[in-house]
């Protein structure tokens, strides 16, 4: 299909991307890599649909509708020295607002995307402070009962970005919807090197408790934990400049009805396929020995391995902290009770009252402990957990790069074989079939040469994207931690001030004992 869409010769050696339409993914890959070839420097593919600029416009937005047609249109539209390029360049580093109407119009967005230069993307990076989307997940509601029950969450989006159709919108989503969203994003973006934030984990135990209707603190905690995790997941996803524009994301946030994502269930056909793929990937990882020519990747991979270990350790430390705090809360309450009993049995009035006050103070302190335990948990434990999972996504992206390299090498090998076959044909003894065979082989060689070039481009593309993604990840990581530290300190200060109040209230009671 893509073959007829050969772009103008300006685009350097762009081949009709994928002749193997097994999965929609490849379709996209070729689209991107095709677009990136710039007349200025063929050696440095411009990442149009980059992760940096707050509003790159990858054409994958339209893939869901009718990939072939739209893709074709995009091809025809693009021309890197098309006149559209100039005016859009002059827009310069603008905040993340696309001057388009919400109903998707192809031309301006697509050409705008192609007009991005790497420098512009860097500038846009700085202006990400203008990023203005606030998502909250709230109001968990149980729907149905028994084992068929599920929780529904209200997802509210507040934004001034115009890619959204409204300033404020609220929709109801269930957990499998989130998983479905992640699954779509992962299949679209991970293999080209974007770090797609992982969705919160399933929890059979937690969910069963909720389904069965246990109205205790542990299931309330579970629901709150999940709600918070879903909120963080969405915020991380929209903070990614590429993912923000994805139609699946927009649909998720805005449309009132969403088709049920059944393929997220573990035992569905898709689920089993996932498991098979995971196994296949694992085997591949072992068999592909990549010749790493770029030291940066080797270093980074090692760094991420180290970081993984460190974060897991930190996570374990914090979990232990949370556990002890809970224990302290239990003990404090117990002590408060025993103190109250002492107070009740005490004859001396003032002493009795003081002891009862002591019990009250201890109970108040216990509330503080519980709050602080929550803070420890939500601020650090969940943050660290999120990052451990994010690192898994990062590692996945590095693995994708290895796979891409593998594909490229495979293509090289095939090309080699075809060339050898061609050479052999020179010495063949079947003259009548010779010409036909020669023609065939020539075609095949051309085909594989194309694939080799494609493979190389893909590899360079994914490497470039990964570099950017890693840079973004590292910046975000520092930001996230800073934000949490400040929040944590605020909670610490608040707790202490409460404590001071309680002690100051108790002191006169103690002094009043005659």
């Amino acid at each position: 299909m893509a073959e007829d869409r050969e772009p103008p010769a300006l685009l350097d050696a762009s081949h009709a991307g994928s002749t193997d339409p097994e999965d929609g993914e490849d379709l996209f890959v070729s689209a991107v890599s095709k677009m990136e070839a710039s007349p200025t420097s063929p050696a440095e593919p411009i990442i149009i649909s980059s992760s940096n600029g707050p509003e790159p416009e990858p054409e994958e937005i339209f893939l869901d509708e009718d990939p072939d047609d739209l893709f074709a249109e995009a091809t025809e539209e693009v021309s890197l020295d098309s006149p559209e390029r100039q005016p859009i360049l002059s827009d310069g580093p603008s905040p993340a607002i696309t001057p388009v109407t919400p109903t998707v119009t192809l031309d301006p967005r697509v050409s705008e995307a192609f007009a991005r230069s790497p420098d512009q993307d860097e500038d846009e990076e700085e202006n990400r402070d203008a990023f203005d989307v606030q998502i909250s997940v709230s109001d968990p509601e149980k729907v149905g009962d028994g084992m068929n029950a599920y929780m529904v969450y209200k997802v509210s989006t507040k934004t001034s970005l115009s890619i959204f159709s409204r300033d404020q919108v609220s929709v109801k989503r269930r957990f499998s919807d989130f998983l479905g969203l992640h699954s779509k994003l992962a299949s679209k973006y991970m293999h080209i090197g974007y770090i797609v934030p992982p969705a919160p984990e399933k929890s059979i135990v937690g969910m069963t408790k909720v389904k069965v209707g246990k109205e205790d603190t542990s299931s309330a905690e579970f629901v709150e934990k999940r709600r918070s995790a879903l909120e963080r997941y969405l915020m991380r996803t929209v903070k990614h400049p590429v993912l923000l524009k994805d139609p699946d994301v927009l649909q998720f946030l805005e449309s009132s009805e969403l088709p049920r994502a059944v393929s997220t269930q573990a035992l569905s056909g898709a689920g089993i396929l996932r498991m098979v793929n995971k196994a296949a990937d694992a085997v591949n990882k072992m068999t592909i020995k990549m010749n790493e020519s770029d030291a940066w990747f080797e270093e980074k991979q090692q760094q991420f391995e180290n970081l993984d270990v460190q974060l897991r350790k930190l996570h374990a430390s914090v979990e232990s902290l949370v556990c002890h705090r809970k224990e302290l809360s239990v003990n404090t309450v117990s002590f408060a009770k025993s103190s109250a009993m002492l107070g009740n049995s005490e004859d001396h009035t003032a002493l009795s009252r003081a002891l009862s006050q002591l019990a009250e103070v201890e109970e108040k302190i216990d509330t503080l402990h519980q709050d602080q335990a929550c803070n420890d948990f939500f601020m650090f434990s969940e943050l660290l957990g999120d990052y451990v999972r994010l690192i898994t996504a990062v590692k996945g992206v590095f693995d994708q790069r290895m796979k891409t390299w593998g594909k490229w090498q495979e293509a090289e090998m095939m090309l080699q074989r075809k060339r050898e076959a061609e050479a052999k044909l020179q010495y063949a003894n079947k003259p009548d079939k010779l010409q036909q065979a020669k023609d065939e082989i020539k075609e095949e060689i051309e085909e594989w040469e194309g694939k080799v070039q494609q493979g190389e481009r893909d590899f360079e593309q994914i490497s470039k994207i990964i570099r950017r993604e890693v840079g973004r990840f590292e910046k975000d990581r520092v930001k996230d931690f800073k934000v949490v530290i400040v929040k944590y300190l605020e909670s610490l200060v608040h707790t202490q001030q409460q404590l001071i109040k309680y002690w100051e209230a108790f002191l006169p009671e103690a002094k009043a004992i005659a």
Partner: protein
Amino acid sequence: MEGSSAESALSVSADSIRITDLTQDGDVLTFAITSQKLNSSAGVCVFRAYEDFEWLQQSLFSQENVPGLQGIIFPPLPPKALPLQSNMQTKALKQLGFLALGQDWQGYCKALEFYLQQVATHPTLCKCKALDSFLINSESPGKQRGRKGIFNRLSQAVEEMRKESHKDVDNFFQNERNKNTNIAALSKVATEKLIDVVMTEQKLALACGHFSTSLHLCVNQDDAAAVAFSKVCLKLSDIIEAVKQNFEKVASNNLTTLGLGLDLESRYQEAEKEMLFRRTCKLIELETVKKSTEKAKANKREVMEEFQKAVEKEFSLISSVAKEEIERFHSSRVNVLKNVLIGWCEQQLNTAKECAELYSQHLEACRNMYSE
């Protein structure tokens, strides 16, 4: 060593008794006890081991010619301390309770010091020669075993249990016994619960320490991004270190004020219980003698009646001493508890203020550093 005379009195000021130092040699703990002489400005310093305290307590129990000795609520001697090793924590806890938790024996020394002060300020006990010699003789009393005096620990024999619940002839004492049983049990429970709290606080401090150390391990200088992250980790490490120190202080405050106070109250209630039990035993003895006298044959009757009169006299002496002791005990314990509660509250308040200040500084610094 034994005996006392009405004229002998303590030669040092009771308020000046201090335990100033503690040395440990293997299993043996030696305490340095200082006090001020009453008639001069000279100070005295002696060195005593735990056995010497036990000797003193025994001597107090076995005094002769002290009317109604059994009615005295004897200041409770803290139990013997095992040398502090981490793996002995639970054993020590069971025996020593609170006194095992202090890191540097501070609590324990304070408890022993308080014991000596209580003995020295007791109107009757301060006259015991043994106390004076304990406090000023350079030679320790050594292994002298005093006469076995009145028992000081309730045995668990079923018989004793039965005696303990023997109905009293005097309402005042019956009430006191009931209240005492109740409060003794409750204060013991409260002490144990507070121990749990303190131990958890200490565990939290440890956990914070681990967290803080783990953060240090995240530091690396590979590239600019790593450096930025390392800075953040180090900052957090400092904060967690501050949290840890706060826990340590809070635990220590709980220990040295409320903890020791509750422990003392608990042990004193036990001491009162023992006194009341002694009196009850005397009551039972009296009632038994009365019955025997009634049943006695004429020839033995006079002897029995003499004997009965003697027991009656003892019992009435014990009761009157006991009454005074109980009044004294009540007012003193309220005072002690008041001071304990005030001290506890003030220390925790100070710690909370210091901590709030420190956290605020960190917060300020972070806000400044992180405002980009």
